[in-house]
């Protein structure tokens, strides 16, 4: 059944009692007015009328003018709880006030005047020296020229200062015009903004401010009274007090806290030395095993294996690229050092995966554990690497194993996060089905949760590999070896040639690993 706007419902139909056509239906003004009155508080009648005008019209041009908003400016907005326009217009009005201040009492051209005085003084100085020289019977033209030049420059500066001072009136007018425009804008648009606030208030009365609040007015006034005079003073008066432009910091606070923190770290490093050494030993074992495999094995074997793996995992094109990249590395004599880099990344990734996947599974299953872990993971990812290199040196010393630990801090969050995400993404219905068929918790994990979370876990591992690769250069700062060291040395001596060659070597290592891993994962996805 269709009904046009003009069609009158037939009497006795479902719309019995409706007398007019659809287009004649009117809003129930009484309930609307009551609702607006509840929202607006004081001046309810005015706002009801204004809102009706807004509701009745379309188009962008405002048909209402709020005198209170035009007169009080941002303070009207503060009192009505419209903090968005309060801040916007407060800042704009400050700009206007600054212009007015500069135009009224600002010493415009003061800088140029000072400069003109200085130039005039030096011109006079040279003039006396020229006079002395002439009096002594020597050639004074050199001094005379300088004095003339400086005198002209002083004259120009003075003219500039006068011109700037003459601009004062214009600046004052600009400021006043700007203020007028801003107030008019507030007057015209206040009701529109306030009506939007009313619409939001209808949905969430608790979250949206309503009525005229004395507390808000006081707050807005206090803010305005602090912000406006200080800012205007700062920008219009020459030679303001130091405490306005510079925070009065106490150097003692800094030195005591730094000393205290140093003591804490030293104590912790001393008392936990056994544990930290154990961790370093463990990391070293993993690194040594991978290094031995990559560097101890004849280079021909390792190269062939890498190329074949590239072929099998990602196809012939990646294999050809891999061969070319390895040739570049080998011919430039980077082979061993590049393999050290691969071993560093490999050890970091292995440890990340071994620790990260079980943690991710745990966090995926336990919401509480995840809520505790999330801020830590955020910190691990947002903290700049340079910041935690220092405590790592304090606790673990320098060299490759501490470098790997720094890499793990940076590289582990993605695999944890994406494992947890994958675990949480497994549909409850499928888990329930497996349980209903008698699966144990281990079977549920092995047969349902891990396979379904696998794509997400693989994405996490891939991201972890890339993050670890990006740390390779940085860990050379704390004695990590490999290609990063080459770059660091080149950087220290500004050696452009070696730096670029080493840089390309790192790039190729990263690209080969990334291509092979992505190719392998893409194939696994298709299966």
């Amino acid at each position: 059944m269709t009904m046009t706007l003009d069609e009158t419902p037939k009497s006795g139909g479902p719309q019995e009692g409706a007398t007019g056509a659809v287009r004649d239906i009117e809003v129930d003004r009484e309930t609307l007015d009551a609702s607006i009155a509840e929202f607006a508080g004081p001046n309810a009648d005015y706002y009801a009328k204004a809102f009706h005008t807004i509701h009745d019209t379309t188009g962008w041009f405002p048909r209402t003018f709020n005198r209170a908003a035009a007169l009080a400016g941002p303070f009207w907005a503060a009192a009505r709880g419209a903090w968005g326009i309060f801040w916007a217009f407060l800042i704009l009005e400050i700009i206007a006030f600054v212009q007015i201040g500069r135009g009224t009492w600002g010493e415009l051209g003061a800088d140029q005047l000072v400069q003109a005085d200085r130039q005039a003084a030096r011109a006079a100085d040279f003039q006396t020296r020229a006079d002395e020289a002439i009096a002594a019977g020597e050639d004074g033209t050199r001094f005379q020229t300088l004095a003339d030049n400086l005198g002209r420059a002083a004259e120009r500066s003075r003219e500039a200062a006068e011109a700037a001072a003459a601009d004062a009136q214009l600046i004052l007018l600009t400021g006043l015009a700007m203020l007028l425009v801003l107030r008019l804008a507030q007057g015209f648009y206040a009701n529109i903004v306030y009506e939007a606030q009313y619409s939001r208030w209808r949905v969430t009365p608790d979250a949206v401010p309503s009525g005229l609040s004395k507390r808000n007015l006081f707050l807005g006034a206090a803010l305005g009274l602090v912000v406006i005079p200080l800012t205007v003073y700062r920008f219009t008066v020459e030679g303001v007090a130091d405490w306005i432009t510079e925070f009065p910091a106490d150097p003692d606070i800094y030195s005591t806290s730094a000393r205290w923190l140093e003591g804490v770290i030293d104590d912790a490093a001393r008392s936990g030395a056994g544990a930290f050494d154990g961790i370093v030993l463990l990391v070293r074992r993993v690194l040594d095993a991978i290094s031995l495999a990559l560097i101890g094995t004849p280079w021909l074997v390792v190269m062939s294996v890498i190329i074949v793996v590239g072929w099998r995992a990602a196809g012939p094109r990646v294999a050809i690229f891999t061969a070319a990249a390895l040739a570049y590395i080998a011919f430039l004599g980077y082979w061993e050092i590049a393999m050290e880099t691969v071993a560093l990344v490999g050890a970091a990734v292995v440890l990340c995966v071994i620790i990260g996947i079980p943690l991710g599974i745990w966090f995926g299953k336990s919401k509480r554990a995840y809520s505790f872990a999330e801020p830590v993971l955020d910190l691990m990812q947002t903290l700049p690497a340079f910041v935690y290199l220092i405590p790592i040196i304090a606790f673990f010393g320098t060299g490759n194993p501490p470098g790997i630990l720094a890499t793990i801090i940076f590289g582990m969050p993605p695999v944890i996060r994406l494992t947890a995400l994958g675990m949480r993404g497994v549909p409850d219905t499928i888990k329930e089905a497996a349980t209903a068929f008698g699966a144990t918790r281990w079977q549920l994990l092995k047969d349902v949760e891990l396979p379904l979370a696998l794509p997400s876990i693989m994405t996490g591992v891939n991201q972890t590999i890339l993050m670890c690769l990006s740390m390779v250069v940085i860990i050379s700062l704390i004695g990590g070896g490999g290609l990063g060291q080459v770059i660091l040395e080149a950087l220290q001596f500004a050696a452009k040639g070696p730096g670029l060659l080493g840089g390309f070597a790192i790039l190729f290592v990263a690209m080969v690993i990334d291509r092979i891993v992505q190719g392998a994962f893409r194939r696994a996805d298709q299966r």
Partner: protein
Amino acid sequence: MTECVVELDGVWKVFGAAADDTIAAAKSEGLTKAEALAKFQTVIGVRDASFEVARGEIFCIMGLSGSGKSTLVRHVNRLIEPSAGTIRVLGEDVGAMSPKVLREMRAKHIGMVFQHMALMPHRSVLDNVAYPLEIRDIPKSKRWAISEYTLGLVDLAGYEDRLPKELSGGMQQRVGIARALASDPEILLMDEPFSALDPLIRLQLQDQFKTLVRDLNKSTLFITHDLDEAIRIGHRIAIMKDGVIVQIGTPEEIVTSPADDYVREFVQGISRLKLVKAHTIMTPLNGSPPPGDAIRVDGEADLDALIDVSVGTTHPLVVQEAGQDVGTIDKTVLLRGIQGGKA
């Protein structure tokens, strides 16, 4: 239909911390669902449910969404723990089972089918069906043989090596049914299995399922929100509202004598044609021999089928049960039967 395979006795499920207080208050002063929420911040999911399912029976639980029917059925294999009451499956108290015994019961005796199929997307159809057997450590050769057989039961032979996503919704649900049948359980729990399917496929699957269950002699607890489906499939129907079982009875009983206004409103639109059976309206023979040349109809034939047969003949129809002539139906009896109750 004497042996009882599933038995629920006074089962309550209350979600929330103060479950025991809620049950006590509900038992003593008849606390309603809304009052429980206001007073104890608890939600009554199932309220004092008791019923029995006999061997070979299809027992339907019908209710609208939120009536607690899915919650109730999950008590049978203890996917949900009851707050009070006992559940017995094949004579054993489910609540008293150790985790190991419970898993064994789930794996061997209960097959479950879900509304959203819940197939494992990474496994082939064959491996999906074989999963309940895999859990029980049955060797691969055996479980593949059984799975192929059960896939044949649901007419899916030839689809063994496809992935579930390559199949249509109706076929996927048949895989779900095959999976539930794979371990040859005595009991099937069907949680709105056909609700997500389009009407035509639904009708086909209902018929297929009914035949299958009769042939295999399974006992079924069938959840649905569709009274038509319940009447089509169920031997008996329990109607649930707000966690309470309002009425239990055969489709005929539910339609002919609804327990309250709620049920009456439901059955208003249900046609009797498909419900009332020949043996209900027939005139018993009482020893007198039936006319030899008359057309024979089955005692289970519904009025709709009787009309189809009856328009082709002027003679009364003879009703047979188990190959024996037991009664007759003439045109008057048939018309009165369609009208209902005025015979």
